[in-house]
């Protein structure tokens, strides 16, 4: 029997609370995923995904871990720092986007931040996520803050425009100052198992991004099976995705924990094969503080502490922040709070 008796460190060991990990801003410590040639054999080895087992794991995982008191407050602050504060409505306007950016810069009421002892910690969403026309507005509003500007792109949310159009869209957003691009894949390519085509499209998108980071939205609600989710995740990472992201928020089924589990396990497999750390972004339907904690638990258990940094994890969310503020106010005051007591975005 050939069984090693050591565990491969996963990932390169980072002690909990390690300063480097905590400060890890995107761009420094972490090397970008260069991608790899499309490896259909590797892809095929990832086909074994058992939906029922994933569902059971997801269901028990959130019951296995509980975060109380000051730790809960700390974890909720973490949720804020891991947020892509998002507005993706057909009726968005520049002023609406400016309001969102203002909220991103001051996510917490000052008295709350003081009471929590984090007034000087600059805990705020990692990025603001908007449609292309509002990129410039957001860049202007967030200038110098370190808050990133993410643009949804490539014929969001369906991804069905000509590739040239979609690539041009990326270029335009990058030109306007977006440093993160959230692209969608054409889901039909997954259903038809046209992996080389999907791979090439994503590679082209990565190239169009240049220095901007590429988040690949799989539209998991449209992919039918967890196996498809895993396979699409793998192709996206092979093609050079910096992040893989669940949903546009426009599919009928949003980010679910079992689907998230399939994706983070794909991230783990990719790390084991290549040594590169890929980010994960669940999006759509994550609107309560409790649910955000469930996701953080999932990440900590399946990937580890290192992934609980903005360079490796994001929530795509619009109304989550308000609920977190309410919970934090309750933590401070012991009184249940109301939404109108917190500045809206």
């Amino acid at each position, binding site marked *: 029997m050939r*069984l090693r*008796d050591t565990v491969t460190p996963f990932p390169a060991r980072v002690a*909990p609370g390690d300063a480097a990990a905590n400060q890890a801003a995107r761009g420094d410590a972490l090397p970008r995923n260069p991608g790899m040639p499309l490896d259909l054999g590797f892809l095929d080895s990832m*086909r*074994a995904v058992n*939906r029922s087992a994933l569902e059971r794991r997801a269901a028990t995982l959130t*019951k296995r871990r509980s975060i109380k008191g000051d*730790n809960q407050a700390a*974890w909720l*602050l973490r949720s804020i720092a891991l947020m892509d504060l998002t507005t993706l409505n057909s009726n968005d306007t520049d002023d609406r986007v400016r309001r969102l950016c203002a909220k991103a810069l001051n996510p917490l009421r000052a008295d709350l931040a003081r009471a929590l002892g984090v007034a000087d910690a600059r805990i705020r969403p990692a990025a603001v996520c908007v449609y292309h026309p509002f990129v410039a507005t957001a860049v202007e509003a967030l200038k110098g803050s370190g808050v990133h500007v993410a643009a949804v792109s490539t014929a969001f949310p369906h991804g069905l425009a000509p590739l040239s159009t979609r690539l041009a869209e990326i270029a335009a957003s990058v030109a306007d100052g977006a440093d993160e691009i959230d692209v969608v894949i054409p889901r039909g390519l997954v259903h038809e198992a046209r992996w080389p085509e999907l791979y090439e499209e994503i590679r082209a998108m990565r190239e169009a991004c240049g220095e901007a980071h590429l988040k690949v939205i799989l539209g998991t609600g449209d992919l039918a099976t967890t196996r498809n989710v895993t396979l699409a995740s793998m192709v996206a990472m092979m093609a050079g995705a910096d992040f893989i992201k669940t949903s546009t928020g426009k599919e009928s089924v949003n980010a679910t924990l079992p689907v998230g589990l399939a994706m983070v396990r794909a991230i783990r497999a990719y790390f084991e094969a290549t040594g590169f750390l890929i980010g994960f972004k669940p999006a759509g339907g994550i609107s309560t503080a409790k649910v955000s904690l469930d996701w953080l638990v999932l990440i900590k258990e399946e990937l580890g502490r290192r992934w609980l940094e903005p360079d490796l994890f994001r929530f795509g969310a619009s109304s989550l922040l308000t609920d977190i503020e309410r919970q934090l106010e309750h933590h401070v005051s012991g009184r249940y709070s109301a939404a109108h007591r917190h500045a809206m975005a």
Partner: protein
Amino acid sequence: MNILDRYHAMDYGPAPEARAEADAWLAAQDFSRALFIGGKFVAAADAKTFDTADPASGKRLATLSEAGAADVDAAVAAAKRALPGWSAASGYARAKVLYAVGRAMQRHARLFAVLETLDNGKPIRESRDIDVPLAIRHFIHHAGWAQALDREFPGAKPAGVVGQIIPWNFPLLMLAWKIAPALAAGCTVVLKPAEYTPLTAVLFADICRRAGVPKGVVNILPGGPEAGAALVRHSGVRKIAFTGSSEVGRIIRRETAGSGKKLSLELGGKSAFIVFDDADLDSAVEGLVDGIWFNQGQVCCAGSRLLVQESVAEAFIDKVKRRMTKLVLGDPLDKNTDIGPLVDRTQFERVESLVAEGASEGALCWQPDMALPSAGFFFPPTLALGVSPANVLAREEVFGPVLAAMTFRDTEEAVQLANNTRYGLAASVWSENVNLTLHVAPQLKAGVVWVNGTNMFDAACGFGGFRESGFGREGGREGMLEYLDRPLPYGAAIRPAAPVEQPAELAEAAIDRTPKLFIGGRQARPDSGYSYAVLDRKGRLAGEAGLGNRKDIREAVSAARAAKGWTEATAFNRAQVLYYLAENLSARADEFASRLASLTGASGRAAEAEVELSIERLFLYAGMADKFEGRAHQPPMRAVTLALNEPVGVIGIVCPDDSPLLGLVSLLAPALAMGNSVVAVPSPRWPLPATDLYQVFETSDLPAGAVNIVTGKAAELAAVLAKHDDVDGLWVVADAATCAAAEAQSAGNLKRVWTTNGRTLDWTAESAAGETFLARAVEVKNVWVPYGD
């Protein structure tokens, strides 16, 4: 640590479940009157007490009255008094009570959970999310059985007063598994919880009072081995249901031998967890967490033997180790705890010494680097690598968080390794290939098989073991049968065999015929070289039958074990052979009738009737061969649980003297119909119809080894069969002493024994055929198949 520090650290921190309510409950109880008898809490007759402690701290939780023999007498008497009323109550009335109990438990669910964790040491997550909800479900599910009883089990009667003894690893859940079906069936119960963990049973007793359970229907006796032994021996108890160690199971088997008590035993296990190379490995790792690191591994069906295909072994073991480092060991009342303390010092020392022994036998034992709490019996999760099949960790039930890992090359080897154990409780099979999983599941000698899952339980699905993991099922339709009796047409007491008198003369002068034994499809002379006289009705010599001995039985059992041509035949194939047997017997009906008449002195018509009824029975069971089917249970999840009727295996059949042909056929045919192979000891006094019958077998396409016939002294041969560890089932119709001895001697491998307890059966009665016998000829295997893509 301020919030900002915590923000950087991102640790979980403590999340203790409040225990104030439980402490208040403990403080309010008068545990000096903890015996629940006849609807009242009373003190032990001899005022004895015992302590129960919190295994996480070692601190005493309560001092309870300890039941002794006198209390058992009182409780059984109360249960007896309550029996007529309860069993005569309408199914609807019993359903309402069971429903009320379930709902009342639900209203106090958290108190049950916290008490269970305090008393047992299991993580609060488990008692809260698994034990208590499953126990509640059991009562509500069985409310339905109570009401459906007459329709679903026509003619069945409650077994009577039931004695139930449960273990400490799932105190409340095992209580529910025992009490709910018993009450649904109309039985009244005396239940003894485990000495380590009596508290939730006391709370349950209180719930019974409030939920309107009639006085005496449920009696609960906290106590130790003395109470347990008294309950097992009590003559007023008609059925014993036990969950616990195989060692105690054997003692109970011996103790109850000859008593006529029904018995179900749910004992130990060494369950295989098989991971094929096309499995979802990450999910299989989680399966292991639920399999062996559930309840600290103190689970009878724990997936304690990991069998992983060589091609993925290294990758899989890496994943397992990495996962082990994430397990949180600590205060069981903390919601973040995955692994609590073992229940007691004895248990801790046992686990520790088995691990040391395994290591000394060559296993590489690996434990993640984790801090252990200073108090309490905490044992870290342990992975033993390089475990050979001979290693103690591969053979003995550890009952701790210890996983023994082995590799296999192919499916056949996986099945061989999985079945290479005395136990047969459960198994897990992990593969994304449904063809493979459903190919493997029927080959596993285990009462429960989980496909791509583990430790799934439900009130609607049967649970229980093959082999030395015990017998009987709990849950589902098959579980109800354990508390029901189908009346059989018992007759007079059978007298022990008298010595054969010397024959006066030869019956008839024809060409000499030597009746032989029939083993492995061939006629064989007895190993002893002796024969004995068979007399006819007038005391004349009708023939000389072989005097079979233990070696003949040994050969016959080997032949039966090797009878793949029969045990692997399709049900339709078996049906056709049985029909063909009937056809050929019919062709020789006159010969058999005159043989019977001349031997037994039966009238010509009676002898003809016996032959005709034997043919009819063969027809009946031929027809049922492909109809006595399993079921598809519906657990409350996206899964189907297939309750498969599988043959018991090799069945020994010891036949009575009366109806020497019909008795044999009535026992043989159901066993054969369900795919068992048989070693039959025919009527010792009149074995000649049986030895005539092998000529019918030889002309009926019955594969070699399917039926083996050894003539001789029934008591002696029954004992050899009872003590044979490769015999899976034994049916004995003989005198009381032979029956009792067979039951007692069967304790070695805990084979499934059925006897008439020294009485004859009226084989001509309709109730001497059919479902009762078919059910005895099968083991129910529950195969869980969760699905979804």
